[in-house]
């Protein structure tokens, strides 16, 4: 029972990452009809927003400490971050400590801008082109973006630790009457889950309850008619692209403390997120979220010793196996619409 609960928990936070990326992908696909292979790169850029902010906050001036030496035997240069000298050592250290949550604020405008520029500068010209061309150009863009990041930040992962107060883990099992140490769960993973729940809820509420959202939904259903009504749907879709980019970016910012960002993390997620989107059904937002959590949880269960001894290698292939089973039993994924991306 406790092992069961533990894997559900694990699946939830894996699933949140999948769901957030898949949600953004589906938004872009549903509104603009574009298959965006650069979406993983947006996730990666989000994570590097956090790295950049951390670097900025850690900008330091050097003072020479004659009492210590560096690895070549020269006097050691001690670095003091400017933030610490401006706000005092304690407040400065606290700001640096909270750099990841701060990076959420930092990343929103950046990601919106990145999304806007990407849509206006590149994607716009590909609406009428075949999906194959869209794939090629966004894949090219993804490579360029990740190589640029690699050029500036290197290939090695870079730690973006969570704030001191949110490190470590909670003994959730004890709260529910299990033995101590039975269900231990890291605080930041709970934060991540809560964060993604808020974002997902926010996106749905935005689309459901605002006029803007209503128009966008109408545009997703029938773009031409909405256009004929004299509504500038293109501009709204551009904004939705920015929002989708921001969702991917925020997913990346918050993901950093779980696993340190590196330049190829976007590619690692790219294929997986497409599988999630398709299993959910092309063009369906609830489908994307549902599939994200479903695959996350199943992946967690497949990694238990019980599962891997029953079927060797199941943890390697579970996602793909589920995708095949779902697509063979439900032709358009869990909640896909007829006729979308079927030709």
């Amino acid at each position: 029972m406790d092992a069961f609960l533990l894997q559900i928990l694990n699946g939830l936070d894996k699933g949140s990452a999948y769901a957030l990326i898949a949600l953004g992908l589906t938004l872009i696909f549903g509104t603009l009809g574009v298959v965006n292979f650069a979406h993983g790169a947006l996730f990666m850029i989000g994570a590097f927003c956090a790295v950049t902010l951390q670097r900025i906050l850690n900008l330091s001036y050097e003072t020479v400490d004659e009492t210590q030496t560096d690895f070549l035997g020269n006097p050691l240069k001690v670095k003091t971050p400017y933030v610490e000298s401006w706000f005092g050592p304690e407040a400065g250290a606290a700001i640096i400590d909270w750099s990841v949550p701060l990076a959420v604020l930092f990343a929103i405008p950046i990601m919106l801008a990145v999304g806007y520029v990407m849509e206006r500068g590149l994607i716009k010209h590909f609406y009428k082109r075949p999906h194959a061309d869209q794939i090629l150009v966004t894949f090219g863009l993804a490579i360029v973006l990740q190589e640029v990041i690699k050029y500036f930040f290197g290939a090695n992962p870079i730690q973006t630790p969570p704030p001191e107060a949110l490190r470590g883990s909670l003994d959730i099992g004890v709260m529910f009457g299990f033995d101590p140490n039975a269900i231990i769960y890291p605080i930041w993973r709970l934060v991540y889950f809560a964060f993604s729940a808020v974002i997902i809820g926010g996106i749905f509420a935005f689309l459901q309850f605002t006029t803007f959202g209503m128009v966008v939904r109408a545009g997703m259903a029938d773009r031409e008619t909405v256009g004929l009504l004299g509504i500038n749907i293109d501009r709204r879709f551009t904004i939705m692209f920015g929002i989708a980019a921001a969702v991917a970016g925020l997913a990346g910012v918050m993901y950093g403390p779980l696993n340190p960002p590196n330049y190829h993390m976007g590619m690692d997620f790219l294929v997986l997120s497409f599988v999630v989107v398709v299993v959910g059904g092309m063009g369906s937002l609830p489908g994307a979220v549902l599939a994200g959590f479903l695959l996350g949880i199943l992946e967690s269960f497949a990694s238990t010793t019980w599962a891997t001894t029953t079927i060797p290698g199941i943890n390697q292939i579970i996602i793909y196996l589920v995708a095949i089973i779902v697509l063979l039993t439900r032709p358009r994924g869990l909640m896909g619409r007829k006729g979308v991306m079927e030709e």
Partner: protein
Amino acid sequence: MSNKSVTRRGVLKTGAVAGAGVALPTIFTASSAAAYTNEPTGGSVTLGFNVPQTGPYADEGNDELLAQQLAVEHLNGEGDGGCLNTFTSKALQGNGILGKKVEFVTGDTQTKSDAARASAKSMIEKDGAIMINGGSSSGVAVAVQGLCQEAGVIFMAGLTHANDTTGKDKKANGFRHFFNAYMSGAALAPVLANAYGKERRAYHLTADYNWGWTQEESIVASTEALGWETVNTVKTPLASTDFSSYIAPVLNSGADVLVLNHYGGNMVNSLTNAIQFGLLDKQANGKDFAIVVPLYSELMAAGAGENIKGVLGSMNWNWQLQDEGSKAFVKSFGEKYGKPPSNSAQTCYAQVLLYADACERAGTFNPCGVVEALEGFEFDGLGNGPTLYRADDHQCFKDVLVVKGNESPTNAYDTLEIVEVTPVEQVTYAPDHPMFSGGDLGQCNPGA
């Protein structure tokens, strides 16, 4: 080999006259009368440096490349000479190799065995490289080693830690300076027993491919010999980026030590996850929980950041060593590039020097001559103290370092501290040890 009765020396003799004498196929070139593949004819000799330049290990590859360039400088008599001054063999004069100026070409392995072979082939076929050096994974090392054997050039392996490289996949034309998984186990186990006691229960998370398996096997064997118990060994998929579902059950499994048989990005993530779950703050079986990372590298330590504090592991070499060879190398590397070298950089540097020295002593670039010169070669002054290149399997035997994540690092580079230098006797094994059995060196192949 179709002709097993021919001795190596015999091949060398006939090979010098005509390589075809032992029914060896004509490889690469049939037009010139070269005695061996890519025999240098002009005033220079070309070495091939095959390192990962794209992909997750690009930074490690870059470090290797820097060290190799430094080695070339030293061989050509530029710079401060580095380890040429401390190396016990004095054959190298700083005038290139055998009087020929050393030049190099580079290639990108992408840490994929196919791509690595393609770039090695291009260096051999197109650029006339006579030796291939570098790499940062065992899969690549074994694949390129096989290629070099077929092509008739020497392979000086870079970072490769799996037992198989000098075990079941060993080749006469291939040489490994780096240590291996067995040595890690032999060096680590006593230190672990000292630090954590002899009654421990270990839980292994292992990367699900060849290197992971050999390391798990080695660590399990050496820790169990000292009284530890192995609770469980779990294989994690190679493509994993998140290990939470593998870490979560550890605490409730009855284990009190977690061994992470992961490398590179996998290790950085699995260790970060383990720290997130607060494993190091917990107690199990009435003992403080401990984590062990059997194979460390400087870049992994940098990637894992604060998480490695107090975590034990092993290394081939570290820049903090105080012997003359290490100091000379760290000085010239540090002054040129502004950072201390990593242990894979040191291996690649040493390998280039060892190759050059063997050519000088053999008086030829002929791979068979080089093999003869390197087999059973004893030397010192390149770091790690007195070292032997064993003839039976072309594995270097030298001291191994047990290191620990530094509790209070003073700069970006001393994230690891040396706990113990395990003497070479303790990590030496018989050539027919079961973990290394099944291979055959074969004959050296000069190609042509």
